[in-house]
């Protein structure tokens, strides 16, 4: 028994038998063992799905309807065909999502799970606590909080992804240049990073946002432009190490251009810490966006965002617990999910695990 085991081990180690698992496989293997991180990953996937499918999940028009014997997809053709058809009259709260019994026999409507649009208001229903119809209650204009939160996920996630994308581009390029060339290039970039570190970022962001016309793109740009220093420092450190490694020396000796060495040879090897800080960066950007909306510097109304609902809740703080709890919980859970994934990735990439 022992003999066969030993021979198997030997054959495995012999060259050409079974290749060792790739770096990616090993990271994934370690990541999967961390149950919390996997839960975080699922939560982020679910959030992205909610954001992408928001119009299908919360809307004031049916997904599919048969009216007067004609089939229609009210969501897809809202402007032309459905303009004079007001679905609000037909909507009977409580009977969702499947509704029959109006018009001629056999007519029906299939509604989204939350049959309210995020901007549709009903002053008679304002500040209603959670009910069977408005699951998460309504705000001071009678808008459905759950619907606003589902559509608000789009704002949070798009700000998170775009701002971090911008920060990654600036951070990777400046960090790579600083680490690769060293000398005065490094000095200049390091000083710029130090300047951004010393300036009170959050205050600078609200000052700039307050001066610019209100727009989600300005928020993305400002968060991205102030948030790249962490990535730059990681990439710089990684490039300083990589510069001394044989394969970089070899490609330089072969006459490869700087651009080719930086982007083709070194960058793929420096991506691990970048990935981790990108994931943490998304959590940070979601937090910054919701803080901005909370302070009233967020996306212009009536676009729904989580921080905006929370900031409304301050006017009714004595009793409107549903306006405070649900959007806050959404912010907390999405930040937690991204932080869990980031932490899981960082631990899974820890070189000590591979020894």
């Amino acid at each position, binding site marked *: 028994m022992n003999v066969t085991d030993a021979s198997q081990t030997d054959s495995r180690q012999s060259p050409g038998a079974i290749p060792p698992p790739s770096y990616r496989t090993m990271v994934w293997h370690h990541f999967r063992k961390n149950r919390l991180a996997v839960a975080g990953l699922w939560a982020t996937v679910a959030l992205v799905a909610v954001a992408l499918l928001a119009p299908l999940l919360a809307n004031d028009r049916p997904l599919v309807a048969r009216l007067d014997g004609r089939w229609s997809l009210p969501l897809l053709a809202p402007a032309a065909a459905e303009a004079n058809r007001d679905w609000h009259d037909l909507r009977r709260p409580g009977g969702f999502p499947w509704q029959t019994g109006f018009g001629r026999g056999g007519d029906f409507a299939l509604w989204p799970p939350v049959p309210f649009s995020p901007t549709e208001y009903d002053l008679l229903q304002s500040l209603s606590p959670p009910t069977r119809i408005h699951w998460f209650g309504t705000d001071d204009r009678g808008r459905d909080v759950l619907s606003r939160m589902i559509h608000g996920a789009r704002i949070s996630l798009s700000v998170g992804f775009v701002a971090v994308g911008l920060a990654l581009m600036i951070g990777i390029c400046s960090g790579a240049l600083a680490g690769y060339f060293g000398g005065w290039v490094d000095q200049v970039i390091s000083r710029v990073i130090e300047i951004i570190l010393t300036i*009170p970022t959050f205050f600078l962001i609200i000052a700039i946002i307050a001066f610019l016309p209100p727009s989600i793109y300005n928020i993305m740009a400002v968060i991205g432009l102030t948030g790249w220093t962490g990535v730059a420092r990681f990439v710089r450190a990684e490039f300083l190490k990589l510069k001394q490694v044989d394969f970089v020396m070899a490609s330089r000796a072969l006459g490869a251009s700087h651009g080719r060495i930086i982007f083709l040879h070194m960058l793929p090897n420096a991506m691990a810490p970048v990935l981790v800080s990108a994931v943490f960066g998304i959590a940070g950007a979601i937090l910054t966006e919701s803080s901005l909306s909370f302070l009233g510097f967020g996306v212009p109304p009536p676009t729904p965002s989580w921080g905006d609902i929370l900031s409304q809740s301050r006017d009714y703080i004595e009793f409107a617990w549903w306006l405070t709890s649900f959007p806050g919980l959404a912010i907390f859970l999405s930040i937690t999910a991204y932080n869990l994934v980031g932490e899981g990735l960082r631990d899974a990439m820890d070189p000590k695990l591979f020894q």
Partner: protein
Amino acid sequence: MSAYLIKRLLQIIPTLVGITFVTFLIIQLAPGNPALVKLQMAGEGGEMADSAYTRQIIDQTRKLYGLDKPLPIQYLLWVKRVMTFDFGTSYKDHRPVLDKIAERLPITLQINIISIFLVYLIAIPFGIYSATHPESFWDRLLTLGFFFLYSLPSFWVAVLLIMFLGGGDFWDVFPVYGVSSIGAETWPWWAWLPDRLWHLVLPVACLTYGGLAYLSRLARAELLEVIREDYVRTARSKGLSERVVIFKHALRNGLLPIVTLLAFLLPAMFGGSVIIESIFSIPGMGQLGFEAVLSRDYPVIMAITTISALLTLIGLLLSDILYALLDPRIKLE
């Protein structure tokens, strides 16, 4: 050592220039210009009718802030004013900006110093416990708890605390407005102090828990790293008691990065103060900054940005020097 110091001090010069440049950009970025903003404010007072008069005000204000000169000259004038700490007067009430800041600073410092003190007081023992009992039940619980605490947005916590503990339909335990009761200035200190502390509980809690969670996780990680080092094993194997090994040998190195972090923390907390002070109506620097942004009070915005950047720069410098002094491994290159 002195070579390192000189080099580090020289590096400050370009950073200083950069800071003045960024703050200068803020005022250039402003739509219209400060002269127009000031004019709008005057307009709210109802003196807008005469357009010649309007023009005169614009010209006066432009001259006052040097806005009639070419950009490079404007920049040099701004640098000169920063160097002499001349930040002008507030648009809102025409009082010197420095006076306004000096009046607001003590309360922000008070809150942040209490908060930082609590962060270190609580985080380090928890960090030590977690690092010396790795993977134990309490370590897992603490690590997980601090993780969730770290992800909690402080403005949400503040609103929740106000809702559930500050009156309204739920419990009424803590005051949620300002830093003292009305008329408390005339009370004797033994009545004033408890009242002040009672007012500070919620804002300080909101400012503290995030740093606490971050720091104790950091302390655990750093200490765990150190405890695995050879010299700690040596100390153990030569028969020193666990207490001496941990508190005398491991802690000194393990807490080094955490102590030097202190220099970073104080200015960093200013960002948190902006939100927390405006939620709890605390008349500090954060609220001053927030109000200045709302009313486009450029001199105040620029002064606050510049002063906190300078303070952070000093903090950075101190932490680098402290690190170099405490850790001889830092190379002088």
